[in-house]
């Protein structure tokens, strides 16, 4: 569905992403994890056209989209959300979502109706006429997702939609994301909430200091020595092995 080949970018002396290749399978939920500052959001930026890679290429359903503008990428069926939510603050929830719906719907009234349907799907129907700026963090995260969903994407890039939510709110979002997959949308998510990654993702990539260090099922990567060290520091894997405590699922909640 989505393929990154040898992507690299540097900001001055910082190699933010180095030679990263991955292949997101269609119809599944996949996740990208890694410690803070590992280059996850930068990689999303490269994939979605907000950043132009120094080297490498991006293919969406076999089509080369490297260096294509974000709006063009969106029109091809790949929509992203932002880690720091960016609502159209002065507009209502309905108007916010309608901007996404307008991608395929020129008529204003119909786009607003579509927005309402998407809002209902995400449990935002009670807030349709509120200003986006008046929503709680959880509400804004849902709005971010709703707007993206309104573009009817084939592939959704979710950048930490669960960050900043309390456990109940996280629990409320999990069925929503699972529902996306069931409706045929491929999901590729950056996530720090490991419980969600374990729950949702079928495939996980781990990135640290700009490099891909592991890939596989959630269980595989969380027991990978390099992954443990990336999160908890050099020598930790060995120490944990000595203590016979290989389970790190709880602690990787960075």
């Amino acid at each position, binding site marked *: 569905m989505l393929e990154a080949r040898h992507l690299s970018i540097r900001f001055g002396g910082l190699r933010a992403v180095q030679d990263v290749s991955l292949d997101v399978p269609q119809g599944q939920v996949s996740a990208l994890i890694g410690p803070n500052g590992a280059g996850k959001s930068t990689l999303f930026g490269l994939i979605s056209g907000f950043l132009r890679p120094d080297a490498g290429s991006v293919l969406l359903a076999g089509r080369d989209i490297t260096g294509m503008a974000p709006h063009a990428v*969106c029109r091809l069926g790949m929509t992203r*959300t932002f880690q720091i939510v960016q609502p*159209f603050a002065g*507009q209502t929830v309905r*108007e916010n979502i309608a*901007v996404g719906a*307008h991608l395929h719907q020129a*008529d*204003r009234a119909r786009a607003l109706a579509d927005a309402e349907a998407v809002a209902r799907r995400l449990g935002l129907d009670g807030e349709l006429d509120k200003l986006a700026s008046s929503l709680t963090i959880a509400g804004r995260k849902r709005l971010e997702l709703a707007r993206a969903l309104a573009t009817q994407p084939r592939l959704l890039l979710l950048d930490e939609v669960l960050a900043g939510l309390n456990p109940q709110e996280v629990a409320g979002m999990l069925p929503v994301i699972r529902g996306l997959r069931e409706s045929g949308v491929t999901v590729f998510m950056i996530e720090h909430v490991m419980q969600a990654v374990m729950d949702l993702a079928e495939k996980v990539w781990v990135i640290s200091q700009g490099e891909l260090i592991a890939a596989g099922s959630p269980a595989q990567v969380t027991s990978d020595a390099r992954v443990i060290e990336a999160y908890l520091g050099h020598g930790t894997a060995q120490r944990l092995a000595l203590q016979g405590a290989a389970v790190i699922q709880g602690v990787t909640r960075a």
Partner: protein
Amino acid sequence: MRQLWLIGAFAGAVALMPAFVTSGAALNLAIMTLYAALLGQAWNILGGFGGQFSFGHAVFFGTGAYAMAVLQSGFGLNAWLALPLALALGAAVGLLVGALSFRYGLKGSYFALVTLAFAEVFRILANTFQFTGAGVGIQIPLRDSAADMQFAGKPGFLYAALTLVTASLLVAWWLKRSRYGAWLQAVRDNEESAAALGVDVFRVKLGAIAISGALMSAGGAFYLQYFRYIDPHIAYGPAISVEALLAAIVGGMGTVFGPLLGAAALQLLGEATRGLLEQTPGANLIAYGVLLVVVVMFLPRGIMGLFEAKR
């Protein structure tokens, strides 16, 4: 729909005005208010709906005025034929300024400075070239006939200004209820988000500056027909740019009726200060400045904000 009725009611009320008001001064005030509302709405399309604050809208105003003047006096073209060309030229200058500044992602005060620079460059060019009359400017001959868009009385000009203002109101109304308008306001509120949702930010901004440029050049064309004289300072000087943004900001940016209300408030204030402080020329400008400060501090959404306080 309600706003469409309001636009209709406003146009009807103003159209009936000459039947009851015969005072030349009162009609002149109405004409100048409509003219200021047109400039304000032109600025509002780009600044209020699009979030791109221009400080040099005179570049479009002057282009419209000079296009009318040169086409009529230099080429002998009829004013009614010259008008669409003037609008097209205003839009073209908008596209030029927009392409050069938006291409490089200029925003906020940088965009404002670039537009100011463009207006200054055009002013200097108009001051230099012979075909624009250089520093002397251009006077178009008095004809006093509607066939030449020079009306014998004030009502004719009132109807002309009203037509243009109504058209500008309809453009703003359309922006409130169309996909393009939704895209434009999305770009204003957050460019990155808009782009992520499939909005071609560059083209949307170009569209807004072209529409804005065309409306502003209509204001310039009207000015020329009404006063029959233009020179580089009037056409491209900063006063016009300030007048345009003042009406929109005072009235309420990004609203349909804001520029109209702002223009009315400013014209009335100007008349009042001119009347009260006859010995102090320019007192109205001081009053404008004070009003702007007050509005920015206490009414960030302008006069329209008073009506929408419930939200």
